[in-house]
């Protein structure tokens, strides 16, 4: 696993930081060099931490580095500010997941680089705890 690649994405992944176009207000997560409106001026934008689930799947045959977490849920989530994000949804049985379910940000371990390498942390989502 590349350490600089992990490090570079820390703030966006740890804090759900995206960008907002300074001209048209379009929100991006992850950030993008050029807005659909043509502008290249952006300001930091903190994503909403709550959202609802639009669709999901259950990964049973995982890519390398994710095998020890199967089965796990990956969902397309629409955040309360309208931004869409793809994320694992944890602390829920696959059978209990429903379209429209309210979910919130959770900070979790994403993968481990073997026994000795870096631990990767970042966002996942979970059913809202209240």
């Amino acid at each position: 696993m590349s350490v600089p690649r992990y490090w570079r994405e820390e703030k966006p992944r740890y804090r759900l930081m995206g960008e907002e176009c300074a001209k048209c207000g379009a929100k991006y997560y992850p950030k993008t060099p050029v807005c659909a409106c043509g502008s290249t001026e952006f300001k930091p934008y903190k994503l909403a931490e709550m959202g609802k689930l639009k669709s999901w799947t259950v990964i049973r045959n995982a890519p390398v580095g994710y095998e020890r977490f199967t089965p796990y849920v990956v969902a397309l989530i629409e955040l309360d500010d309208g931004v869409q994000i793809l994320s694992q949804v944890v602390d829920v049985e696959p059978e209990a997941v429903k379209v429209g379910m309210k979910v919130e940000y959770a900070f979790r371990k994403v993968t481990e680089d073997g026994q000795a390498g870096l631990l990767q942390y970042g966002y996942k989502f979970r059913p809202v705890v209240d």
Partner: protein
Amino acid sequence: MKTLIRVGIAGYGAYVPMYRLKAAEVNRMWGTSGEPVEEKAVVALDEDTITIAVECARQAVKRSGVNPALIGAVYVGTESKPYAVKPSGTIVAEVIGATPSVSTADYEFACKAGTEAMQTCIGLVGSGMQKYAMGIGADTAQGKPMDALEYTAACGGAAYLFGPAEESVAELEASYSFVTDTPDFWRRPKEMYPRHGNRFTGEPAYFKHITGAGKALLAETGYKPADFKWAVFHQPNAKFPINVAKMLGFSMDQINPGLVSPVVGNTYAGSSPLGLAATLDIAEPGDKIFMVSYGSGSGSDAFVWKVREPIKQRRGGPKVKSYIERRKYVDYATYLRHRGQIIA
């Protein structure tokens, strides 16, 4: 011990993972019949001390309303560091937005590491070196299969953001630390599980240090147990905190709200901080709280807190009770998997 500048808790946060292992399931596995707690909290596959610390820290910051950039210290106390070398605190500080003008470190003092981190923060804020400092106790404690600790070694934590007393939810009136070299429990490098001295962990260790610290702080402040609405003691099981409360003259009514070990287990560095969080969840302004931690090795930190008016506005979001009630039971095999003990 008293600070030069009055210090209080600006915000607090707690977290207990969702999974539970019942003592009965441990008994089913080994044909035993112990029940030092009813059940204990177990991490999900993707949780560890760092993720627990982050959950607690985020809630503490959110409740405090403090700009995270003003937090000058983040200390994580734990005996289950995900990295042997690399601070957990840097990750927590990065997530909450306290970097880069911040001091961080990981503290180790068995079950007392959390309150040790808190004491350090109190010193920083109390001396005027920092306006805000965060101390966290969090653990994913290890219990060897078939060992007595397997019933109790649990996962969870709590975070305390310290700041000026006048804007706090609870003011620190005084604190006291009591330490001797008493090797009742330890874990050597590269060992998966700690060793302990069995009954030696009781009288010369747990009870001696908690009563030592507790009595000294009572003497220093001039308070009597009856002056406190609530009390919290380190909770390695369900029985010890009840016994030590009696020894010091505290009642069940005083310790009940913060006695979470029967249903959460011993969250080690998170234990008494979690008990304090559960107590703050129900406390009223003006209530005094007496708190004594214990860490093997051994030592205790004792605190006197006085709850303030802002508590009512600063305990939104999930309570300790919410996390306790959010639970899913796992069988022994699933427990081993969650603890990374099934080699695949």
